[in-house]
């Protein structure tokens, strides 16, 4: 292809990456603005506006048919729009929740919002990849931004330590991930996902190459979604990272990474050979996440283990390897994003030690719901949703990842899943009862909370949490439409349209 015709194609197809463009450009603008008007209060709102505008755009794209743009490097259509929507909305919520949190720290963090936008760009690329290079680049863009965001509060030992751990392990896993891509590339001779599926793995050694490469490739993803045994960074990093950004990390990252994984599974390796691996990792993840969460006293650490466990549930849906499984997993990602953003958001607004909540034990929050009923109520909703109680989104999500697994004959896996869910109730309920049922006097909190220590809960932040909670109720009752949408992405006809 020659350069001139390529340019016109690129321009013509630019609307397909509207979100990426808007978010990326506004990110650049923010840096410039921050450079001249350090810490201008409008910066976060500008970022939020970009995310909101992109979200609106993606909503209109939900029904779009699947297609590829930019010479088969990126995908468009409902699936992409859905994932982008999750990413953008979590980004938006994070931005809104970060404002009071970062104001409390009284430092100029204008760049933070720009970095959120950059990470979002990476995630969007990841979630709309159609070839391995897009995946790699998206993943790394996202990761690098997140390394920085983790270590944001550089005065704090914990934050920097988290960043270091995250970074070192992330880079380490990138090595495996890249190796995996290289081997798959070697076996198929292509980087484009559907072409990989079409490639003829005629000889034993190409098969070995391909599947060995795919295994290493999975390792990279397992790391990003914090599946066991690649999860060990998660608690340490989540605990040290600034709380609202932890929420962002645990949701948007997972959504984008899982989306890319689904794209690979669907387009590049549509067979079921990986079922056992996914199922085994799912089991390990669910067990490790839930069991280790049991004994946690720090809320953020607890939520970190919980997010590990939830990655396991999504993997159950993927392990099913059916349309319904993928659709359920997508739905689960949406629900999970809403509830986890909410849970971390609540914790962000209840953080009082100025050390990213790392000394904040559960018992110090005893009876907090009496003083902050809205936070208490929304936290209750998030926790019950995380357990998987109807009629909240968490239940519907679990139902639609477990159901396909049963259909695919993985009943044993689902049994483990539900047992672990039951176990998880123990620690989630602990949060609820600490919030609602204990009084500070009762538990003799070692580190008593003073009212002044809380970040000022802005209207917007509270509003975000309430919206999340309401969204969970709505998703828990009227999930039909959403599910139908996600299922639509994987229908044979929709897939056939893609090259």
């Amino acid at each position, binding site marked *: 292809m020659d350069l001139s015709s390529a340019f016109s194609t690129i321009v013509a197809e630019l609307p397909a990456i509207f979100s990426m463009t808007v978010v990326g450009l506004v990110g650049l603008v923010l840096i410039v603005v921050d450079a001249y008007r350090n810490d201008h209060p409008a910066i976060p709102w500008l970022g939020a506006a970009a995310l909101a505008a992109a979200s609106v755009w993606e909503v209109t794209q939900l029904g779009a048919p699947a297609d590829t743009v930019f010479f088969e490097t990126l995908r468009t259509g409902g699936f992409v729009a859905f994932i982008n929507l999750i990413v953008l909305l979590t980004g938006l919520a994070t931005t809104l929740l970060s404002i009071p949190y970062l104001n409390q720290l009284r430092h100029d963090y204008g760049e933070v919002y720009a970095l959120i936008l950059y990470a979002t760009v990476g995630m969007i690329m990841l979630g709309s990849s159609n070839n391995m290079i897009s995946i790699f680049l998206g993943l790394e863009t996202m990761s690098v931004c997140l390394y920085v965001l983790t270590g944001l509060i550089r005065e704090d030992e914990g934050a920097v330590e988290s960043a270091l751990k995250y970074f070192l392990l992330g880079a380490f896993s990138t090595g495996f991930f890249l190796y995996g891509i290289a081997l798959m590339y070697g076996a198929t001779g292509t980087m484009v996902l559907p072409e990989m599926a079409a490639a003829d793995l005629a000889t034993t*050694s190409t098969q070995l190459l391909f599947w060995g490469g795919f295994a290493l490739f999975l390792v990279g993803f397992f790391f990003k979604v914090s599946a066991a045994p690649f999860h060990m960074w998660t608690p340490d990093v989540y605990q040290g990272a600034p709380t609202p950004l932890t929420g962002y990390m645990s949701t948007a990252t997972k959504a984008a990474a899982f989306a890319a994984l689904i794209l690979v599974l669907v387009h590049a390796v549509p067979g079921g050979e990986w079922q056992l691996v996914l199922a085994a990792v799912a089991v390990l993840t669910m067990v490790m996440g839930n069991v280790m969460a049991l004994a946690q006293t720090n809320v953020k650490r607890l939520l970190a283990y919980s997010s590990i466990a939830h990655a396991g549930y999504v993997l159950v849906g993927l392990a099913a390897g059916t349309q319904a499984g993928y659709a359920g997993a997508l739905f689960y990602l949406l629900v999970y994003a809403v509830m986890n953003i909410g849970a971390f958001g609540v914790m962000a607004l209840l953080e009082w030690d100025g050390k990213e909540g790392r000394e904040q034990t559960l018992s110090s929050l005893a009876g907090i719901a009496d003083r902050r009923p809205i936070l208490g109520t929304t936290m209750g909703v998030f926790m019950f949703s995380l357990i998987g109680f109807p009629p909240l989104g968490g239940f519907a999500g679990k139902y639609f990842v477990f159901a396909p697994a049963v259909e695919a004959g993985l009943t044993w896996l689902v049994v483990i899943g539900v047992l672990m869910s039951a176990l998880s109730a123990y620690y989630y309920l602990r949060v609820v009862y600490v919030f609602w049922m204990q009084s500070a006097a009762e538990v003799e909190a070692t580190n008593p909370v003073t009212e002044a220590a809380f970040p000022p809960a802005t209207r917007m932040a509270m509003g975000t949490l309430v919206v999340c909670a309401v969204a969970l109720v709505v998703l828990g009752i009227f999930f039909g439409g959403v599910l139908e949408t996600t299922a639509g992405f994987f229908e044979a006809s929709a897939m056939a349209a893609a090259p």
Partner: protein
Amino acid sequence: MAAPPMFFLLATVAVAAALGMLIARNPVSSALWLVLNLFCIAGLYLTLNASFIGVIQILVYAGAIMVLFLFVIMLLNLSALPELESLDWARIGGFAVGLVLLSQLLYVVALELDLGVEPVSGEMAAQVGSAATLGEILFTRYAVHLQVAGILLLAATVGAVLLAQRRFE
């Protein structure tokens, strides 16, 4: 593909340099060993007729990245850290895992490798690896990616500044 003597020479030096990096106690030595290794790899790229990547390798890796490393090592005035003396479980496990991983990788890539297609000719390879070919693809098919890579680098820059700048007092 290269002639055997050239390859084996470069390969031997590369492995030796890598081991040197692994074993050297002083971080500066490690860095220098790594630079040697990177040069060897660049050489290997050239034996593969991948001229563009070979040049990039030297420019970016050896020229930029490793300088950055050395700069930071100097800046922090790091001396050699005492390495672990005894063979603890982590070390034994590390060796074991490394061995397993290596054997798996070798099993996958090296034994009776048969891609089912003939390797392309040297000329063709040279054309594929040339700056022209790669540049064209980069500015057409991967134009968006290039922009994103730019964002990535910008983010890294901003992030590096954010993280490394001195605290406000």
